[in-house]
């Protein structure tokens, strides 16, 4: 932003009295700046709309879906091609694929969001402690994290599903555990860089308690990478959950899931390819939405891009 002399003016937190000032001097919060930057990217806005649409579908599935997810359509029929009454066709048991696709969005959103929360809760404190205190504690925590990271994510998820019985809840637990090191690392590197800032020294010199330093000053600076990682992690969670369900190791019937439907309908691909295409398309569009949003957030939150 530039003022009338063409000088770059960046916003800074100000007092309430600034509200009456000229637009270029007005107070803008970090949230405001981020949202404005986000709004400049078409793909990010698209992503945001798609994500909101997806959440709406998941919440309102009962109202939108014409049939139940396990309901066998009266009037018979099996592996029917798409028609006006059944826009996505019928599967081999005679269930409406459109309704199943809509209901499966619930599993996707549930897995995506809850697994992130499960990773955040231990991951953030671990990262903060490791970064802030350093020394032996840091090395110990990072060693444990590295052991978990030494396994490919998908393999680790499979291993956990072998030990626990396959079910949606266990998929969430598996994904949660697998992601803890990622958050710990991200938070730790943010904390390490923030620790060096002089204002942290100043705050500590003011003899504020450690907790206050951590939560009110260090943590807000870590928010950006956490938000970006979380958004992109939702899409990988959904991909991994559908891969696991595709292999039969994730969500079990009768709970509808895109991955499971994909596998179940794959056998009949010569008869009716559409019932395979639509669940897969749903996974694709969901992942795309979160990726676009995540990319947009990454650009919006990047402190280097001072626009």
């Amino acid at each position: 932003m530039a003022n009338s002399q063409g000088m770059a003016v960046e916003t800074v937190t100000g007092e309430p009295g600034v509200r009456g000032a000229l637009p270029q001097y007005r107070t803008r919060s970090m949230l405001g700046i981020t949202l404005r930057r986000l709004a400049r990217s078409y793909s990010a806005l698209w992503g945001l709309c798609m994500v909101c649409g997806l959440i709406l579908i998941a919440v309102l599935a009962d109202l939108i879906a014409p049939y139940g997810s396990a309901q066998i359509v009266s009037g018979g029929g099996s592996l029917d091609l798409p028609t006006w009454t059944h826009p996505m066709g019928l599967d081999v048991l005679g269930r409406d694929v459109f309704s199943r696709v809509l209901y499966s969005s619930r599993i996707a959103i549930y897995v995506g969001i809850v697994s992130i929360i499960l990773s955040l809760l231990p991951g953030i404190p671990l990262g903060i402690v490791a970064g802030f205190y350093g020394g032996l504690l840091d090395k110990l925590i990072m060693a444990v994290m590295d052991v978990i990271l030494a396994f490919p994510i998908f393999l680790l998820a499979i291993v956990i599903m072998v030990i626990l019985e396959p079910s949606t809840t266990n998929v969430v637990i598996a994904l949660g555990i697998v992601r803890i090191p990622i958050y710990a690392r991200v938070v730790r590197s943010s904390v390490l860089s923030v620790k060096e800032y002089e204002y942290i020294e100043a705050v500590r010199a003011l003899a504020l308690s450690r907790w206050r330093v951590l939560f009110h000053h260090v943590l807000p600076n870590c928010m950006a990478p956490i938000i970006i990682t979380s958004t992109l992690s939702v899409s990988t969670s959904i991909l991994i959950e559908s891969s696991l369900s595709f292999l039969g190791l994730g969500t079990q019937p009768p709970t509808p899931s895109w991955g499971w439907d994909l596998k179940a309908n794959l056998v009949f691909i010569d008869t009716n390819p559409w019932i395979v295409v639509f669940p897969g398309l749903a996974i694709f569009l969901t992942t795309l939405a979160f990726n676009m949003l995540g990319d947009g957030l990454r650009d919006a939150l990047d402190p280097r891009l001072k626009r």
Partner: protein
Amino acid sequence: MKEYIVKKLLLLIPTVLAITFLVFAMMRFIPGDPIHLLLGDMYDQRQADELRHAYGLDQPLLVQYAGWLGRLAQGDWGQSVLTSRPVFQDVVSRLPISLELIVLSMLLALLIAIPAGVISATRPYTVFDHGAMTVALLGISMPDFFLGILLFLLFSLTLGWLPVQGYVPLSTSLVDNLRHMLLPAVALGMARCGILTRLVRASLLEVMRLDYVTTARAKGVMEFLVVNKHALKNALIPTITVAGLQIGFLIGGAIVIEAVFGVPGLGTFGVQGILKRDYQQVQGFILIVALLFVVSNLLVDISYAYFDPRIRYEEKAK
């Protein structure tokens, strides 16, 4: 360079030990007591104790682990309940197939990503650039098994250009082998390709802003060489790093792709074992995949030293 490699090789030993211990511990965590399963209704405490002693299950965990590790080293990876064959035999025969799939996918991904990234970086914000970045984003978001299914639908079922399923060993026919592996490799490689294209573009854009590139141009070096020889070499360093990190995802993705295309590799081996509760197979599968991952990381680390001379000199200076 030599010290760097030796150091990395030495680090391999504790890593492999940690992995084997984790796999061993994991197998012990699986619910269900094998002695119970064996005796079933005729469970008798005395007989159970005898059996436990015979199988060595009453010894401390570390002793059991040492014995198990010893057997592994000798090639005794257990007997599969499903196939009644030694697990090691199956693992050894299926490993090259999965390796071929993974290597082909990575090669395809790099072959497309590097040129595309270079062209995008040299013509930023043009139609090609926007197009390439859009395709890259779509590739990242596409689940690999769905892409495989779509390719299969198009090329095998509809057009009939490529075979539907199965596998032909390299020794039988190179062309047939490649025909069977092409679709799986493309399906597996495309997501990695998307990530790598974006990375090549971003790194190259950054590198081309550096002073030494301007110097090269001022010296009169051809633009083609400036980009592809001088700038690209440095831009490839983060690319190789990320490509190495992607191998883990490739290994995971291979498991699913093999299921889609019926490739008789380690993936189908492992999944069958898991679904049929054949724990010896599962154990062999997890072990070999984890080891594969560790070895590939090691190779990437070593190649990283080759590409980035700073790493070699850092080690020397120490």
